[in-house]
């Protein structure tokens, strides 16, 4: 069958996915194809439809329209439990039982699966050995998140879904989570991950889709997406007067320009040529320079370029 044939190379895919809620289209005709062995990211701001999409892929939510296939199987066609045996899930908002210990929690999840890793091995995998007998309620945010990962890893899944695995964590705790995800990848596992941290997407994902308002607005490797800006430096400036974006955009060394937060975001191919030209243009327009920064182009800039908003502007 077509689906099973695909199942060898494609870990998950959806075509024309639609999910409506009263007053909002959460997912609006989304197409995705996640290959086996890759880490695929869904990058988008709050309310973009990431969780809705992932939960439909996980079989926890039902689409209003579209086709979903995970590991060559569609939800509800054969025994869903067989599919659940093969995937690992970390949900965006699960608070595990406070009164149980780390080991008791992992052991409970282990009991649900016919195959998987020994409890102690999984606890070691997420470096919670020292907290084995600690109550979940007493763990730090980062430790709780690693426990959630342990519960996702305990079945030795082929495909793991991580919905914002590091939101709210400090940088060190975040790196700790990234290490766990990377070691799972090294074992050949496939990961589907959502995030609104572009550093996380750039670090972990082989390919990613940028989503906004339930639609896919860009797709590619992090490098391809950044390259699509046609510039490797970004110049952000605020000036005390009117500027003409058309004139700014055609200055030497400049690839394009867009408005941002009352200022301008100038995509620059060649800083040496662009900087004097931009300053000259300010002078010509009689707009005094208030603030100017430059940085290496990132995924954040791709998002701003595509939407005019920042990933975390809300």
């Amino acid at each position, binding site marked *: 069958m077509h689906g099973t044939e695909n199942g060898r190379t494609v870990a998950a895919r959806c075509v024309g996915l639609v999910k409506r809620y009263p007053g909002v289209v959460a997912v609006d005709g989304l197409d995705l194809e996640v290959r086996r062995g890759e880490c695929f990211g869904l990058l988008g701001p709050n309310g973009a439809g990431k969780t809705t999409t992932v939960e439909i892929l*996980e*079989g*926890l939510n039902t689409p209003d329209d579209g086709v979903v296939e995970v590991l060559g199987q569609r939800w509800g066609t054969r025994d869903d*439990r*067989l599919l*659940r*045996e093969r995937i690992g*899930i970390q*949900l965006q*908002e*699960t*608070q*595990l*039982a406070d*009164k*149980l210990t780390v080991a*008791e929690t992992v*052991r*409970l*999840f*282990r*009991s*649900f*699966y*016919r*195959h*998987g*890793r*020994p*409890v*102690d*091995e999984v606890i070691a995998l997420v470096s919670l050995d020292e907290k084995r007998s600690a109550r979940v309620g007493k763990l730090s945010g980062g430790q709780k998140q690693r426990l959630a990962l342990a*519960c996702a890893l*305990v*079945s*030795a899944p082929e495909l793991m879904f991580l919905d914002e695995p590091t939101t709210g964590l400090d940088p060190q705790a975040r790196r700790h989570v990234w290490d766990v995800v990377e070691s799972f990848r090294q074992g050949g596992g496939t990961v589907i991950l959502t995030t609104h941290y572009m550093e996380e997407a750039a670090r972990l994902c082989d390919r990613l889709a940028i989503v906004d308002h339930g639609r896919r607005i860009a797709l590619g490797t992090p490098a391809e997406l950044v390259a699509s800006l046609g510039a490797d430096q970004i110049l952000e400036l605020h000036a005390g007067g009117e500027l003409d974006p058309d004139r700014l955009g055609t200055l030497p060394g400049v690839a394009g320009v867009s408005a941002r937060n009352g200022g301008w975001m100038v995509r620059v191919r060649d800083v040496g040529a662009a900087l004097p030209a931009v300053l000259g243009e300010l002078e010509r327009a009689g707009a005094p320079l208030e603030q100017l920064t430059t940085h290496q182009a990132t995924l954040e800039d791709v998002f701003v370029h595509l939407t005019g908003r920042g990933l975390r502007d809300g």
Partner: protein
Amino acid sequence: MVEPKASRGGALHPLAELTRVRMLEFLREPEAVFWVFVFPVLLALALGIAFRESGATSYRVGVTDPAIADRLAGAAGLTVMTMEPAPALEALGRGRLDIVVEAAPGESPLPQFVFRFDPARPEGRSARLAVDDALQRAYGRKDLVEHRDEPTAERGSRYIDFLIPGLIGLNLMGSGMWGIGFSIVVARTRGLLKRFAATPMRRPHYLVSYALSRLLFLVLEVAAIVGFGWLIFGVAVRGPLLALLAVAIGGGLSFAALGLLVAARSRTIESVSGWMNLIMLPMWLLSGSFFSYERFPEAFWPAIRLLPLTAVNDALRAVFRGEALLGGALPELAVLAVWGLVSFAIAVRRFRWH
């Protein structure tokens, strides 16, 4: 390393693991342990003391004239207090006196008295007879017959004997419904149910684990109340303990299923509490835990007997009295089975996992 099929990596069968963590969570919740084990015992103690029958009852008599007190002095079973009329009436109104006796001189050649009491209170009526008898004797009445009292003090007919089975029934209902309803709604609000639904866990296992953990705890709960009643008040179980266990299990499972049903869809603690109260309050009043439902008009009895708590209470009392072993409790067990099975079936189908 991935291990061979179905060894479950050091974990037990999912049903056993689910039941195990249920019990651990319960035992680690000190408040829950208090309400389930300590509270019913304290309640039995308080009510047992308040309503204890101290062999010879003494009636509290207020008199407004020391001369009457002199006449009544020495009469058995009367505690006589001399007071002003106004405080005496107030004490009568508050139930601190059973009767007030005033002198009411008039034309009659005999000494005349007024008895003030509340005929609606049994103590008032009995006190009236006792005071009348004592006064008649004090003024020289001669008895025409003689009798000898032989109190039977029958064990099993005191209020505490009625109360202990009722408290067991109440406790089975309360811990079954609150214990299960709250934990499920909390797990739902924390997103834990959704997380479980994302695993291959068989969903009925989750619900059954609640019933199983209740089974283990209810044995302890019932033993605590029965043991307490027996040690402190001498309330004996005359029927076989196995029959007691069977009724307790029937009741416990039935209420566990009802608790699952009430919690099947609620998303908030407030809503589940509302439903719980709506279901439990009528049974607190009607099902004969604190007083017999036979005080309600007879036409209501058949309906009251269909309530699960009534069934548990009636069956427990039959076992305590040692009547007809278990056979006598069959209609009650049937009522419990219907409530339990129907509730469980609906709960499994309507259960909201997220």
